Every structure is written in structure tokens, then in C-alpha cells.
């Protein structure tokens, strides 16, 4: 209040739009909380469609995080620790899905991995296996959307944790693999954790690429966001219940990411 008394009251020209913006952001979420059918919350959670969607979302989001850990960590290490021609180009390419409209990502995946896609067609001719409209397709779509978040978070953590320790480890006779396993990765662990949470959050909410590439089949490819989208027409209470779950999870993620321990070692 001391600032207010010395500089005067905030002008209405700033105060009014600020309050409008704040109201606009808060009110829809508040109404969602109010309109959620809390008395039937657990009953609605028990319906088959909801259970299936919850199960698929849990399965695919965990699979996505595992894919990020196994594939994204080496990519982040490569970008952070190895100098090669085209490194900045690769980093830029890896970043593109971050800003790409999800539906475009879905179209790109169909083009590459669809039944008649460049790789998907070849795969079908050779093995008879097709990817689209399967749970695997959901994981691929989610991984495509989530990996950039993970890679950028981990690359940043690897750079911050310092290349000097790699030099120290090498002077003590460690191979690059030993160094990665015993020094680099443990030091970057907070970044790995933050990246995994970011990837998980992105996977939970992924809708556009999933529905384009994997469709919306209950029991195989219908995730929570797809079910919410469909249910809003037929059964708004289900849609609100599922939305409430995602809202709770999102707030929990935000809280955990704001925890300093995750952001800085």
C-alpha cells in the first residue's frame, strides 16, 4: 500500500481491463468447479466409457513418458554435449512440434505412418501391420507432441549441470558412457524429472494430433480429451466430471513445477 500512497491510485484505464482479464480467466474454471456433479462424481467415474478413457489416458501418457525418457534423453545429451555439423538445425527441427498446430502434427503422422503413408504403407506391405487407429498410434501422436518439451527441458538441465564434470570424469579414466551414467545423468536428474512431468502433462491434454491420427474409438484410442469432446454433446455431466479430473491434475502439475527443487537442482 505504500507504493499506492506515494504514486497514487492505479488509473482506471489499466485497472478495468486488468480486472476484466482476470475475471475472464478465473470465472470459467470457477463455474466448472461449481457445475461439476460432485454428488455423482464417483458414480460417473465408474461408467465403462469413462473407465476406458481413464485407463487409455493413463496407459498412453505413461508410455509416452517412457518413450521420452528412453529416446529423448539421448537426443538431449547429443544436442547438449556433442558438437556436430547441423546441430542448431537439428535443435530447430526438434522444436517445431512445440509450436505446430496439433492437427497439422496429426496430418504429418498420417502422411508418414498412415495406411498409405511413406513408411506406414511400406510397413503394411512387408508385415501387414497398420498403425493408425490403434493404441500405439495414440502413443506415437502423444510422443510426437511431448518429446520437444522433454528434450528442451533436459538439454537445458544438461547444459546447466556443466560440461566441466565430464572433463573431470574423463581425466579419471571414465568412458563417455560411464560418465553419462554416473555423473551427467544424476546431475541432470531434476531437469529429467521436470521434463518428464511436462511431457506427461502435454500427453494428458493431447487431442488434435490424436484424433487426426488415431481416431476416437472407445476402448482403443479414446482418451480423456477425446471422450470429453464427444460427451459434451450427449452427456455434459460426464464431460464436466472428466474435465474436473484434468483440471485437478493440471493444478497439481503446476504446483509441482513451481517447486524449486524441480526447477533448480
Amino acid at each position, binding site marked *: 500500500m505504500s507504493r499506492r500512497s506515494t504514486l497514487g491510485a492505479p488509473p482506471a484505464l489499466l485497472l478495468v481491463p486488468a480486472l476484466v482479464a482476470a475475471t475472464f480467466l478465473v470465472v470459467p474454471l470457477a463455474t466448472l468447479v461449481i457445475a461439476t456433479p460432485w454428488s455423482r462424481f464417483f458414480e460417473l467415474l465408474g461408467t465403462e466409457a469413462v473407465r476406458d478413457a481413464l485407463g487409455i489416458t493413463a496407459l498412453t501418457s505413461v508410455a509416452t513418458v517412457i518413450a521420452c525418457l528412453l529416446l529423448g534423453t539421448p537426443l538431449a545429451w547429443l544436442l547438449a554435449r556433442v558438437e556436430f555439423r547441423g546441430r542448431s538445425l537439428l535443435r530447430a527441427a526438434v522444436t517445431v512440434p512445440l509450436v505446430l498446430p496439433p492437427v497439422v502434427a496429426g496430418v504429418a503422422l498420417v502422411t508418414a505412418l498412415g495406411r498409405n503413408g511413406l513408411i506406414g504403407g511400406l510397413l503394411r506391405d512387408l508385415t501387414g501391420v497398420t498403425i493408425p487407429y490403434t493404441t500405439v498410434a495414440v502413443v506415437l501422436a502423444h510422443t510426437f507432441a511431448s518429446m520437444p518439451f522433454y528434450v528442451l527441458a533436459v538439454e537445458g538441465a544438461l547444459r546447466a549441470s556443466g560440461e*566441466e*564434470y565430464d*572433463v*573431470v*570424469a*574423463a*581425466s*579419471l*579414466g*571414465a*568412458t563417455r558412457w*560411464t560418465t553419462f551414467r*554416473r*555423473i551427467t545423468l*544424476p*546431475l541432470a536428474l531434476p531437469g529429467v524429472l521436470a521434463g518428464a512431468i511436462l511431457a506427461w502433462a502435454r500427453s494428458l491434454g493431447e487431442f488434435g494430433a490424436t484424433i487426426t491420427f488415431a481416431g476416437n474409438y472407445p476402448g482403443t484410442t479414446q482418451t480423456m480429451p477425446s471422450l470429453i469432446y464427444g460427451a459434451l454433446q450427449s452427456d455434459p455431466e460426464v464431460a464436466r466430471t472428466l474435465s474436473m479430473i484434468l483440471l485437478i491434475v493440471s493444478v497439481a502439475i503446476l504446483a509441482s513445477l513451481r517447486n524449486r527443487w524441480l526447477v533448480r537442482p
Partner: protein
Amino acid sequence: MSATPAGLRADIDIPGRVTASFTAEPGDVVAVLGPNGAGKTTLLRALAGIAEPGGEVMLNGTSWTDPPVLVRDRGVGVVFQQQALFPHLCALDNVAFGLRSRGAARGDAERVGRDWLARFGIADLAGRKPRELSGGQAQRVAIARALATEPALLLLDEPFAGLDVGVATALRLELARHLAAYSGITLLVTHQALDALTLATRVLVLDEGLIAQQGTPADVAARPRTDHVARLVGLNVLRAGDTFSAFSPTAVTVSLRPPEGSARLRWRGAILGVSPHGDALRLLVDAAGAGRHLIADVTPAAAAELGLTPGREVWLSVKETAVEWYSAPRSGR
């Protein structure tokens, strides 16, 4: 030139950074002195194999540069400027890391690691993380870690930098004991003349990336050929062509009138600064005739009597017999 089978032969040539050729025998402790930016750390990193390569290095008859040998295969022990202990590993795991990386079993590596911590008197700190160690303790762990792999070449980059004076003094004495028992070659980059005098068997003075002087610590301390070393050992050194003259600040007489005696051993100038130095006061004088600043020690009583304060014009003189004359054996620099 034929390679000696034992010992280090280094011809480092990293253009624009450092160009230095020198040899060292097993058991030698080579102190590398020089001002900031002289190329000391670059030289050390080139020997470790972590700077950009340039020149040739041979250790005990094996070339490290033709074909190039990776850092991890060189068998060097490095103590880096910042201790660079692995922050997530306890003291024991830090010391055991090199042994385990070279294939020792966990139990063996930990036994040897404990032994090394005990030699440095910090066995009870084995389970502590680096952040729980004091500067002196952490530096002991870092040195123990470097020595635990029994390297043929030990590289110490300013091991006492950032430590309290008392801690540094204690660690210097301890290091002297360990280095005496160490059969390999040690390179010690330092800013302290004291390190060179107490720890080294040979001194290498670098200046602007080139070797300005090398010799025994006593020789380099008594007859410095660079201003940097002259300052480090607290001597006035003047140069005329290839001839140097060195004299102690305690041998300098300060007066307000032109003194008697040889004109080439007296200078006039303004006092730039006065600072305590032991029991005496050390004057820094901008001696115009000498072409550089000279230092002179006077008693506090004399300083008070003569009114020696900054800005005051004084005469400095030194007796012919108090001056050490020597020449640079090699021209060029």
C-alpha cells in the same frame, strides 16, 4: 633429439595461446609461474589432453600426440582450479571414482579410497557430500582423488586458490609430504612464489604464452627475469639490454636529498603507496629513471620522521654490493 625413456618431454605449441618446450624427470615437481593469461592453465590442459591439441607430448617413451591419446587413457591426475568434486557423490565415492572407472571392483576401489582419505587425515569425512566440506577439506579430497589412480603425471591447477591463508599453509605442508612420496611428475600451476619455493624442484616462468625463464626455485627467486616473478618474490629487478640487476627492498635507502654514490643506482620519484609489510612499511615509488616502479622498505619511525606519504618526492639509492647482476643466457625475449 632422442627421447629419454623415463620422464616427460613436452613441446606444446598452441598458436596464440602457449608455446613451450620443457622436460621433467620422474619425481620432479615443476612449478609453473606467470601472470594471468600467460598460458599456464592452457599448458596444463594441453598436457591433460583437454585443450585443443597442439605440439607433441611424450611420457616415459610413449607419445600422447602421435597418435593422439584420449584424456581417459593418459593416466593423468588433475586437480582443477575449482575443486570440481562431483557434487552428488560423497567424498569416498569421489576418490573411488577413478579406480572404478579403470575397472576396479567396488569393494577394492572403496578400500583404496578410504586409505587415501586416511592419508589426508579426513577418513572420518568419507560419507560427506562436497557441499558439507570446508574449502580445505574439499581440496584434500580433490587431491586424494587425483592421486588415487596413481597417475604418472599429476597436474595441479592453483590448488590453494580461494583457501584461507592458514588453511592454504597447512595444506601446502601436507602436499609437500605427499609429493615427496610420489614417484611421478608433478606440474603445479600457481600464483604464489611460496608454492614454487616450498614444493617445486624446478620452476617454469611463463609470460605471454612463452617460457621466460626456467631453473631451480632458488635461482629463479634470486635472479628473476620477469616483472611478475620479481613482484612475487618481492625484489626490485631492473633490466638493461640482456643484463638484469636485482636488489631487495630492504637494501634501499630512502632520503629527501640526492644521495651520494653511483648515479645509476639512485632514482628520484613520487611515492605512490605505503603499506605495512611485516614490521616495516613498504613504499611503492614511481622511479622515473628506473623506468618502472620500485619498492623500498623503511621503518615506521623513519617514515614518520621523513614524512613519507603518498605524493611525496623522494630519492632512492642502493649500494653496489647489495645488487645482484646477471644476464639472460638466451636472447629472444
